[in-house]
């Protein structure tokens, strides 16, 4: 249902539910996910078996579930230690147990479980997250099922060694997303097994935190926020660029009426 006027938007904002996320830190020089960082919401458990994730997963941002007419993100107020980009994402699938000291094809906890939202895979991105530090200087490829159900091999993507770091996988040319990941292979051993995992997620909103240690507020007026509809059972988390950023965000969401 459309919000048909500016006054209706303001009324929706007035009745919106503020949701708070606060995470104290993340690693430097890389994209990082908020999933395993303590704070509010609590840290997720480091994943092992591939599981589809939802609003009920501990560590998900507790949005009001079950909205009948669609839940919209109306406004975001962001405070970060340093400027950067903050991407609100829906975590679809999370697994772990991959290692960085073997060049064999890895299928531990793979293939990933079937998606329960965005099931066609279009716009679903794949990333590798480092749970326990690995050595440096290697790349990886994955076999995955694309948005059309075809099995593809990713382009080679570099891994970051720092725990907490996230690297996006590069799809084969022409692909727009993935339904699942089948296996994972590193090019050279880093000498340290560490622990890595694969997350499948859908970016929902890209927010720019433009102030040093200050507030950035974005809505449909200031910042041109797109008034995204949030899936009512979404497992929301943040993907951030850069580092050293304690982050606190207030999201204002409201159900269409």
């Amino acid at each position, binding site marked *: *249902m*459309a*919000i*048909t*006027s*500016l*006054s*209706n*938007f303001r009324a929706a904002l007035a009745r919106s539910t503020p949701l708070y996320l606060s995470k104290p830190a993340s690693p*430097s*020089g890389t*994209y990082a996910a908020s999933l395993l960082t303590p704070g509010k919401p609590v840290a997720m458990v480091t994943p092992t078996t591939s599981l589809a994730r939802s609003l009920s997963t501990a560590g998900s941002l507790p949005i009001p579930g079950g909205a009948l007419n669609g839940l*919209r993100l109306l406004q975001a107020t962001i405070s970060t230690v*340093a*400027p*950067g*980009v903050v*991407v609100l994402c829906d975590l679809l699938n999370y697994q772990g147990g991959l290692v960085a000291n073997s060049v064999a094809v890895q299928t531990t906890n793979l293939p990933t479980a079937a998606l329960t939202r965005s099931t066609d895979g279009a*716009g679903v*991105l794949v990333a590798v997250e480092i749970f326990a530090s690995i050595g440096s200087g290697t790349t990886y490829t994955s076999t995955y099922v694309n948005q059309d159900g075809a099995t593809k091999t990713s*382009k080679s*993507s*570099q891994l970051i060694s720092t725990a907490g770091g996230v690297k*996006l996988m*590069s*799809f*084969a*040319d*022409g*692909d*727009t997303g993935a339904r699942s990941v089948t296996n994972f292979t590193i090019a050279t051993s880093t000498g340290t097994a560490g622990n890595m995992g694969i997350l499948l997620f859908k*970016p929902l*909103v*890209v*927010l*720019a*935190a*433009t102030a040093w240690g200050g507030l950035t507020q*974005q809505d*449909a*007026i*200031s*910042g*041109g*926020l*797109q*008034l*995204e509809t949030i899936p009512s059972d979404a497992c929301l988390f943040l*993907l951030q*660029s*850069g*580092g*050293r950023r304690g982050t606190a965000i207030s999201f204002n969401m409201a159900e*269409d009426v």
Partner: protein
Amino acid sequence: MALLTNMSDRVSAMTGGNVQTTIVQKRDTLVYIVGAANSYWAIPGLPGAAANPTTVTAPTRATLGAIAFTNPTGGRQKWLVRVALGAMINSAMGTIYDRLLHIGGLSGTVTTAQTVGGALTRYTNGVGNLAYFEIYTDIGSSSVTATLSYTNDLNNAATATIRVGGTDIQNRSHIAPFPLNAGEKGVKAVTSVTLSSSTGTAGDFGITVGHPLMTLTYGFQGFSEERGSAATSTINSLGGDVEILSDACLAMLDQSFSSLGTTEHYFLGMLNMVEK
């Protein structure tokens, strides 16, 4: 033209269906020179890496490398209302543009006129169009003058020059616009490009004609590991509505003002579009 006439119109368009969100993501190790721009046309990611052009063609949204969107239907028009992205480079300016025409396979060692030709299929009057020197494989290290012979929006033959090679642009993905002459509003057709002397290496370069749609700035972070972010909308930038023509070949370039050298760069962003 069905402009988004006021804030109520805009809010309604953003929530009334026919909205589209497109994710862009690119990653590669590229050479960054202060003030030189990098094209992401042939860089892997979302959208996928385009094949380097050979003969002159007019790409469309169906061309591999174009940012995905669907053409508007029902008599509506498509409007780009917001671009937001996080970039792993500091202090830069990004540009979303409609890639109208391109040719590759030109040589950095040929000093006679190299033919471009072709015909535009969008923005055919030339207004707002720029011609770019785009490098697909490194050319040589000798700095030379590239002279573009073109037809401007006034239907007059004209020339423009830039320096290429040397400490100017010479590496894969580097791209530089030719300046317009006084009184011109754009490029309607390109006849040829001529190098004043050999750059020393043939490489592979081409000429691209593009129509810039929206620019955005990446913040300066102050630390090498901190990265830029940007969010530009037609509201907070006080710009006008940006129409995306049917079949537009949307692409992106950015221009860093930091001395980054050879570095891995990746960005993740989103384009928000509505129809009216």
